[in-house]
C-alpha cells in the first residue's frame, strides 16, 4: 500500500507530467531535427511556425464551433487540424521559395540560412500577433480528464491521487507514432533515402537523379505538419500564447541537438532528457520517502536534489554533461559545418 502510494505520487508529479512534456518537446524537436538534418540549417522560425499552425487551427476551430460542428467528446480542433496542416505547409513552402531557396542556390554556408531564419522568425512572430493577438487562447473543448485525481483515490482507496488528461495521452501516443513513422520513412522509403542522400551530398544526389526541389518540398511539408501537430497538441494541453511558443524554441533545440542532429529517435529521447531533467532533479522527494522509508529514516528537509531556483540551470547542466560524454548527441548526430 505504502509502496503503491509512493508510486502513484511519483507518477502523478514526475512520471506523467515528464512524459507528456517530453513528448511535447519531442514533437517540436522532430520538426527541427528534420530541417536541420535534411536542409542543414538550424531553423529558428520553427517555434513561430508552430504558433502559426496552431493559430490557423484555432481559427478553423472557432469557425467550426460557430457552425455548431462538433465531435464531442473529442475536441473540435482535431477536425480543424488537417486544414491547419495544409495551410501551414503552404506557408512554409512559400517561405522557402521566398527566402531559403535563394541561399541554397548560392550554396551559402548554413549559418547564413540560420540568420535568414531569424529574419523569418521575426516576421512570422509579427504575423501571428497581427492576426490573433498576443493573448492567451483556449480552444480545447473536449473531455479533459481520462482520470481525475479524486476519482482515482475513490477507485483505488489510495491516499494519493493520479490524474491523467486526454491531451497527455494523445501527445505521448502521437509523438511515438510520429517518430516511428518518420524513422521508417527516412530509413526505409525511397523518398526518405533520397532526402538523406540530398542532405549528405547535394551534388552527388543530383548525379543520382534525385530532384532537389522535390526533396525540399517534402521536407517542408513534413516539417510544417510536425510543427502544426506539435503546436496544436501543446496548445490543447496548456494554452496557446504566441510568446510561449517562441520560448519553446530553446528547449526544443536543446532536445534536437542532445539527441543528435538529424536523428528522429534522438529528437524524442532528447525531448525526454530535457523534460525529465527539469522535472526529476528539482522534485522534492520528501513525501515519496515518507511512504517508502521506515519511520526513523525519514528525511528532515524536502529531499530535493537541487532547489527549484536552479531548475533551468540544472536541465542545462545535464544537457552539457550529456554532450561532454556524447559529443555529437545521444544518437551520433550530424556535424554540420
Amino acid at each position, binding site marked *: 500500500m505504502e509502496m503503491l502510494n509512493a508510486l502513484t505520487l511519483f507518477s*502523478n*508529479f*514526475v512520471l506523467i*507530467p*515528464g512524459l507528456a*512534456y517530453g513528448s*511535447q*518537446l519531442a514533437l517540436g524537436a522532430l520538426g527541427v531535427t528534420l530541417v536541420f538534418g535534411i536542409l542543414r540549417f538550424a531553423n529558428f522560425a520553427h517555434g513561430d511556425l508552430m504558433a502559426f499552425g496552431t493559430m490557423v487551427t484555432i481559427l478553423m476551430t472557432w469557425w467550426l464551433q460557430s457552425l455548431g460542428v462538433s465531435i464531442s467528446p473529442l475536441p473540435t480542433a482535431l477536425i480543424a487540424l488537417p486544414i491547419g496542416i495544409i495551410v501551414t505547409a503552404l506557408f512554409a513552402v512559400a517561405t522557402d521559395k521566398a527566402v531559403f531557396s535563394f541561399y541554397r542556390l548560392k550554396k551559402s554556408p548554413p549559418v547564413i540560412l540560420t540568420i535568414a531564419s531569424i529574419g523569418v522568425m521575426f516576421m512570422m512572430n509579427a504575423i501571428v*500577433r497581427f492576426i490573433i*493577438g*498576443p*493573448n*492567451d487562447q*483556449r480552444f*480545447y473543448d473536449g473531455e*479533459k480528464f481520462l482520470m*481525475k*485525481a*479524486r476519482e482515482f483515490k475513490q477507485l483505488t482507496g489510495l491516499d494519493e*491521487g493520479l*490524474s491523467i*488528461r486526454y491531451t497527455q495521452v494523445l501527445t505521448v501516443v502521437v509523438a511515438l507514432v510520429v517518430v516511428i513513422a518518420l524513422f521508417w520513412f527516412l530509413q526505409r522509403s525511397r523518398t526518405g533515402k533520397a532526402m538523406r542522400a540530398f542532405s549528405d551530398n547535394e551534388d552527388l544526389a543530383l548525379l543520382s537523379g534525385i530532384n532537389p526541389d522535390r526533396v525540399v518540398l517534402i521536407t517542408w511539408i513534413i516539417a510544417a505538419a510536425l510543427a502544426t501537430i506539435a503546436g496544436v497538441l*501543446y496548445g490543447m494541453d*496548456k*494554452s496557446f*500564447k504566441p*510568446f*510561449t511558443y517562441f*520560448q*519553446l524554441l530553446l*528547449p526544443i533545440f536543446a532536445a534536437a541537438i542532445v539527441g543528435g542532429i538529424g536523428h528522429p529517435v534522438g529528437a524524442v529521447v532528447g525531448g525526454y532528457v530535457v*523534460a525529465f531533467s*527539469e*522535472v526529476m532533479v*528539482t*522534485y*522534492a*522527494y*520528501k*513525501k*515519496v520517502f515518507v511512504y517508502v522509508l521506515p519511520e526513523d529514516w525519514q528525511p528532515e528537509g*524536502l529531499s*530535493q536534489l537541487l*532547489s*527549484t*531556483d536552479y*531548475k*533551468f540551470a540544472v536541465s542545462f547542466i545535464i544537457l552539457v554533461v550529456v554532450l561532454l560524454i556524447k559529443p555529437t548527441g545521444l544518437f551520433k548526430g550530424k556535424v554540420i559545418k
Partner: protein
Amino acid sequence: ASHSEAIKVGVILGFTGPIESLTPTMADSAELAFKEASESGALLDGKKIEAVRADTTCVDAAVASSAAERLVTSEKVVAMVGAACSGSSTAIATKVAAANGVAMISPSSTSPALTTVEDNGMFFRTAPSDARQGEVLAGIVIDRDIKEVAITYTNNDYGKGLAESFSTAYKAKGGKVAISAAHEDGKADYSAEVGALSASGAEELVVLGYLDQGGRGVIQASLDADAFSRFILADGMIGDSLIKNVDGSLNGTFGTLPGSESAGAKMFLDHAKANGIDGDGPYRAESYDAAALLVLAMQAGKSADRASIAKNIMSVANAPGEKILPGQIAKALKILAEGGEVDYDGASNVEFSEVGEAAGSYKEVEVAPKFNTMKVH
C-alpha cells in the same frame, strides 16, 4: 503654439515581450483619460492630447531608454505614462526623465528600489511599492488561520521583492513557509515547480506572479495534478481573465490588489466598459489614473510645459481639494480652470507619498466564482 496643435504625451510600455498581453489594455485605459480630457474642451482652453506610444520590450533597458529618448527629444512629448516593468522604468527615469526634466508616471512598476531612484523628482507611480503589499497579504492569510504555505513567485524584482516582504511578515506573525520557489515566466511547462511545491507538504499555495504568465501556468498545473485546490494571490495575478483562462474551479481563492472598494474602482469599470475597454485587469485602473494625473497637472499649472507638469502632479494627486473619480476629468479640469483645487482619487484611490508613489490601500478579494471584494486594508 496655436490652439489646434495637440499636446503630445508619451505612453511607453512593454508592447512586445513578456508582458505584451497586458500592455495594450493598459495603454487603452490611459488613452481613455486623454480622450476624456480632449473631448471636454476644458483642457487649457480646448487643447487636445495626442498619445504617442513607444515600446520598451520590458527586458531591454537600452531599447527602453532609446525609445524614451525618441519620445522626449524627437516627438517632444511633455510627459510620459510608463514604463510598465520596473527595469525599464529605472532606466528611463535616470537616463531620460531626470536628464530632460520630463515627468513620468508608471502605472505598474512596483519594485521597492524605485522609491529611492535618482529621478530628480521626475518619477511617480500609481502602483504601490511591493514592500507593503506583502505585509497586507500576510496579515490576511494569518487572519484566515492559515499557518503554513508554499510560495511561488515570478523570478524578477517584482516577484522576489514581494515574496520576501510576504514571508518576512508572515513568519513574524507566526506562519510557516514550507517552501519558497521561483518560477520563470513564459516557460512551456510548470509541472516540476508544482511537484516541488506540493511535496513540501503545505496545503496552501501563494502565487506571486502574472495572471497570463507563469503564475497561471502554475495554477493550471496544480489543478490538473490536484496538488492545490485554492490559491493565495497578489495583484499581478488578479483579473477576470485568470478565471476565464484557468480550466477548473478557483472557488475560495483569495488575494490582494492595490485599490479600494471605493466607488472609484467600480466607476472605472463602468466607465471603461462604456468606452469598449475591459477595465478589469491588472494595472488598468492605475494606467487610467496615471494619465489623468498628467492631464490635471497640466491644467493646474496652466501650461503644458514640462517643468510645470512635473511640479503640479503632487498637488493634484493629494488633498486638499475636491475628490475626483474616474469619468470626472472634465469636471476636475473645470474646477482647476476656475482656480479651484482637486484631490484626484481615481480608480485606484491615488494618494502620493513625498517621493511620489501611491501609498496604496489594498482590496482583499475572493473568488466565488468571480473576484468579489471582501474588505479593504
